[in-house]
């Protein structure tokens, strides 16, 4: 065993030395390979983190949101509608929600006006999201006027700005009292935008949804898990689009790396002949080349992955962000929570390190199995 370890140490020594002797080639290969890992890892880390963020943010939202439909379109919940939902087994809490969109012609952006259910806002006051704070230069204590759709001007005092941590969903939010909301939008008394239902047991959510559809055929229950799935598929789709766009570059990188790894120079072939003639077995030569592939690809993988990590979590994904994040006038500015998924790392490892290591072994097989006497014949 000790001899085996000692032998591998010798082979690694020799390999490291050969790489150092072919500096330009080794460095070129390392840079290209690192870039390849960097791009793939950046995309994968970013979409993974976005998905996590969405899950985290949606964790506090109700399990089911019930909307009323007329002619397939979303309509207001009329008075008494909530009572007809009645008591449903498994439902912990049921609440009517009030929210709507407001177009700000100054900023040319849409805000979401909402009446919070977990806190009270005094009449004449509002709480705004961080994007509003940034774009309109607002701070707590400032006043702001909005012209309602009926043409009236309403003035509010800002009492608070929502925390940045929740910016992914609260960037464009304006929270106000129920009375202000109804007055601003001339929203009919007793009516709501939709109904939120909290279900304690996650396995019951789907049943509750089905029961709601039976009881209120003109309604549409939206489950939180479905929202999450939609988010996930949007991110997956964007990730796929991006990888498709990048595929040509990735392929070019791949071909370059393959060619560099797979091609044996005349000098290398000569060296292999010498090594065989002085007593190296075919297996020793292959093991040496295996270490070469592994050293380069492991190093490139580590460098590429660390660079991608820094790019995504500390550099705000600057290089590829516009493609993956989507578009909005009021961009939520948020930093992602660093998270590494073992499976994701393993997949990337499998698709980068293994093919490269294999690529280095293929040509060596034929070179290593040639008869050692060829070296004698120059």
């Amino acid at each position, binding site marked *: 065993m000790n001899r085996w370890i000692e032998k591998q140490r*010798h082979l690694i020594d020799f390999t490291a030395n050969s790489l150092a002797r072919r500096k330009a080639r080794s460095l070129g290969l390392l840079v290209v390979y690192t870039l390849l890992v960097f791009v793939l890892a950046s995309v994968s880390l970013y979409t993974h983190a976005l998905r996590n963020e969405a899950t985290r943010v949606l964790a506090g939202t109700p399990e089911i949101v019930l909307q009323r439909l007329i002619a397939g379109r979303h309509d207001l919940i009329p008075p008494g509608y909530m009572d007809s939902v009645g008591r449903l087994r498994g439902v912990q809490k049921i609440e009517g929600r009030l929210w709507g969109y407001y177009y700000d012609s100054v900023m040319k952006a849409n805000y979401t006006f909402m009446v919070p259910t977990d806190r009270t806002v005094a009449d004449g006051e509002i709480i705004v999201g961080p994007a509003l704070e940034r774009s309109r230069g607002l701070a707590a204590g400032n006043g702001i006027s909005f012209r309602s759709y009926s043409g009236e001007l309403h003035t509010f005092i800002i009492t608070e700005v929502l925390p940045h941590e929740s910016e992914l969903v609260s960037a464009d939010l304006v929270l106000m009292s129920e009375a202000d909301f109804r007055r601003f939008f001339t929203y009919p008394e007793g009516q709501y935008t939709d109904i939120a239902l909290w279900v304690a047991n996650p396995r019951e959510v789907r049943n509750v949804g089905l029961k709601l559809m039976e009881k209120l055929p003109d309604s549409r229950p939206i489950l939180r898990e479905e929202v999450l799935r939609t988010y996930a598929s949007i991110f997956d789709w964007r990730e796929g689009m991006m990888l498709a766009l990048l595929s040509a570059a990735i392929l070019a990188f791949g071909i370059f790396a393959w060619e560099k790894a797979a091609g044996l120079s005349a000098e290398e072939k000569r060296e292999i002949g010498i090594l065989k003639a002085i007593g190296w077995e075919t297996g020793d030569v292959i093991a040496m080349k295996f270490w070469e592939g592994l050293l380069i690809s492991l190093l490139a993988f580590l460098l590429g992955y660390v660079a991608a990590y820094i790019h995504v979590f500390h550099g705000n994904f600057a290089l590829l962000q516009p493609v993956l994040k989507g578009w909005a006038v009021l961009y939520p500015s948020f930093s992602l929570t660093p998270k590494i998924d073992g499976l994701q790392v393993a997949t990337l490892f499998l698709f980068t390190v293994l093919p490269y290591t294999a690529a280095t072994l293929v040509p060596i097989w034929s070179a290593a199995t040639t008869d050692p*006497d060829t070296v004698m014949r*120059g």
Partner: protein
Amino acid sequence: MLELANIRKAFNQGQHNEYWALKGIDIDIPPAQVNVLKGPSGSGKTTLLTILGCLARPTEGRVRLKGEDISGLPERFLTEIRRSTFGFIFQQFNLVRGLSAVENIILPGYPTGTPRGRLLERAEALLAEMQLSHRRDAKVEWLSGGEQQRVAICRALINDPEILIADEPTANLDSKLSAEFLVILQRLAAAGRTVILTSHDPLVVESDVVDRVYSLRDGQLIGVQDKAIA
């Protein structure tokens, strides 16, 4: 020490350009002597040397090392024998460029798993023996022809082989360096090593250092001259 019985070697066997390089050779190499295979180009000396050194297999015939038939052994075992029993010196020296003299010397020791410290110790001793210690860390491409050959000899001796094989070792050396090389061979034979070399250099063939000369022509052994008896 090394016996060859009815050795025949064909290249491109079964094809239109089939060529028989050796046509039935019987040789018995005695231990601790300097043996020379001589003959003109195309006589089959290098082919015979590769078979003697287990670098190639004969198409027909038997090779016996210390009485044991090794001609049918699989490559793995043959490599093991080659590594432990033979040391090789090539015409072009075949040193690995970019590596220092000492790193070249210890290369054959790598597959044996011998600790680096011990390999280096042995390499230093060999370098000292060849009066080359001062060139220990020089890259081999910076060495002169004579120095390169001495490094090649050190490399051939690193695994302490019983048999030393050299193909046209003086082809790239001037007369002075060739004479120095022969002195080294004499020392090695005196230390109990068997030396087998090919050469058509009269300086080598006619040297007193050589014990036995095998003359080859057209793939056949045409004479053996035992200089010790003569």
